[in-house]
């Protein structure tokens, strides 16, 4: 029996949330913009009127948008509100399935296969979800129904707004395959250009294209795209409520300014190690393998790793290993733009630890206690309440809190397929 997967995509999400509170602006051009003062002055979302009638595009600079449409109402982004709406949308969807996978704030895949057998029934549920979100949240969604994630996503883009599209396997040639290849998830401008060179313009072309040619042009991603185009994407809708087994914990930052000497690098490594160690402790894990990756100002990327004597979640041990790796392997890569640290070969922190005859394990134990206390202080009073002396070396770096930045990001489907 085939799967039944819904892809639910909120239409002009940010703008819709704002309009829900200002219904009198519904038939006027409206956009949500990034903070103008902090240099991210671009259009994040525009409602259909602004887009169609005035040609305003997502990503456009705000002054440009104002020039095209002087009467455009621009709201500053209110993320807490959007997160609130996103959460409510998810709550509704979770009433129908426990397998709901988020793709950013405004898109979710919902797997109904567990108890629902046909696409027709899937369509009925999709209609119900669509009406409920409209009545309860006051925003509209487009839902695609198919037997795999890629086609469901494609379906949700076909009819907008406030609509349900079912993509059946037997109808692919007359529906999905007619669309330009760039509509397919993971076909960006570069891939589109390469595909055009070999005469692949539509998704149908991609599905029927010879696998060898695709492999030659795009490598193994080409084969993956063909599988997607044929509607054979096997990747599962992840159960988000089940903690995915963690294989490594890592973090990287692009520093506020380029790192020019060893002291700069040391400072950033300590900041990163702190966040990685804190996350290890949060998940109750220790790791044995420390990896370091560096990116120079010419954007050349290098990485190396080292195994420690003992599994650890101590900032000092992770940072020392990473800094030592840097000093021995990449001293000539300066200046650096970004650094990343990750810890792998994880084990639960409840695992017994072999006490050494030669090392001072008492000190190690006290350090662990100390770091837990720091975690507790930070949890209660904020990240900045306790800081290492080293980060005061340059206050520019001290404001970087790698643990808290970048919390909203879609999970790539590649990792699920690549295995």
């Amino acid at each position: 029996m085939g799967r039944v997967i819904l892809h639910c995509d909120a239409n002009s999400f940010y703008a819709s949330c704002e309009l829900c509170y200002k219904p009198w602006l519904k038939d006027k051009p409206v956009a949500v913009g990034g903070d103008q003062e902090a240099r991210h002055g671009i259009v994040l979302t525009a409602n259909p009127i602004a887009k169609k009638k005035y040609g305003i595009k997502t990503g456009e600079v705000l002054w440009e948008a104002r020039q095209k449409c002087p009467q455009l109402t621009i709201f500053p982004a209110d993320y807490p509100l959007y997160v609130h709406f996103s959460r409510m949308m998810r709550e509704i969807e979770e009433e129908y399935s426990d397998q709901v996978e988020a793709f950013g704030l405004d898109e979710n895949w919902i797997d109904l296969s567990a108890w629902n057998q046909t696409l027709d029934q899937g369509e009925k549920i999709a209609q119900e979800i669509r009406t409920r979100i409209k009545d309860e949240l006051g925003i509209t969604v487009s839902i695609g129904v198919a037997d795999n994630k890629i086609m469901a996503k494609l379906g949700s883009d076909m009819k907008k707004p406030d609509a349900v599209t079912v993509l059946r396997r037997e109808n692919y040639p007359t529906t999905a395959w007619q669309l330009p290849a760039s509509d397919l998830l993971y076909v960006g401008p570069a891939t589109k250009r390469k595909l055009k060179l070999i005469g692949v313009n539509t998704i149908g072309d991609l599905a029927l294209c010879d696998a060898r040619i695709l492999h030659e042009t795009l490598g193994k991603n080409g084969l993956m795209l063909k599988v997607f185009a044929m509607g054979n994407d096997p990747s599962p809708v992840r159960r988000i409520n089940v903690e995915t087994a963690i294989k490594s914990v890592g973090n990287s930052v692009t520093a506020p300014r380029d790192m020019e000497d060893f002291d700069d690098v040391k400072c950033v490594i300590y900041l990163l190690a702190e966040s990685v160690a804190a996350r290890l402790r949060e998940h109750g894990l220790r790791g044995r393998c420390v990896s370091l990756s560096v990116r120079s100002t010419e954007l050349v990327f290098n990485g190396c790793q080292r195994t420690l004597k003992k599994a650890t979640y101590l900032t000092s041990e992770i940072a020392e290993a990473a800094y030592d790796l840097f000093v021995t392997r990449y001293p000539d890569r300066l200046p650096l733009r970004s650094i990343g640290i990750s810890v792998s070969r994880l084990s639960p922190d409840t695992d017994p630890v072999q006490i050494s005859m030669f090392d001072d394990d008492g000190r190690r134990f006290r350090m662990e206690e100390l770091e837990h206390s720091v975690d507790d202080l930070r949890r209660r009073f904020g990240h900045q309440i306790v800081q290492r002396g080293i980060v005061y070396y340059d206050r520019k770096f001290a404001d970087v809190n790698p643990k808290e930045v970048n919390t909203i990001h879609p999970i790539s489907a590649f990792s699920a397929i690549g295995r």
Partner: protein
Amino acid sequence: MAERHRSIEGVVLEPNQHKVFVKVRADHELDGMIRPLMFRPEDGAAAKIDRILEIKRAAATKAGGQGIRYTCRVGNNQIYLFHDRDIWFIEV
């Protein structure tokens, strides 16, 4: 945070006659449910809620906004009382 009185550059927000913010007196039940008992607009008389007819999450299409909507009977009138995160309002 719920109703954002944010000033927006170059735009005059029309006053919204359909939305009236209210103070609410309510029972917070043991199971977490909130049962409003009476409400009062900033410059108005208190109104006692005689009966709650329906509780559901809904969008306030006329007033704008959304939240948990309590369909209340107040005397002979039926009133929509909304609870949007930390703010209460009625739709008129």
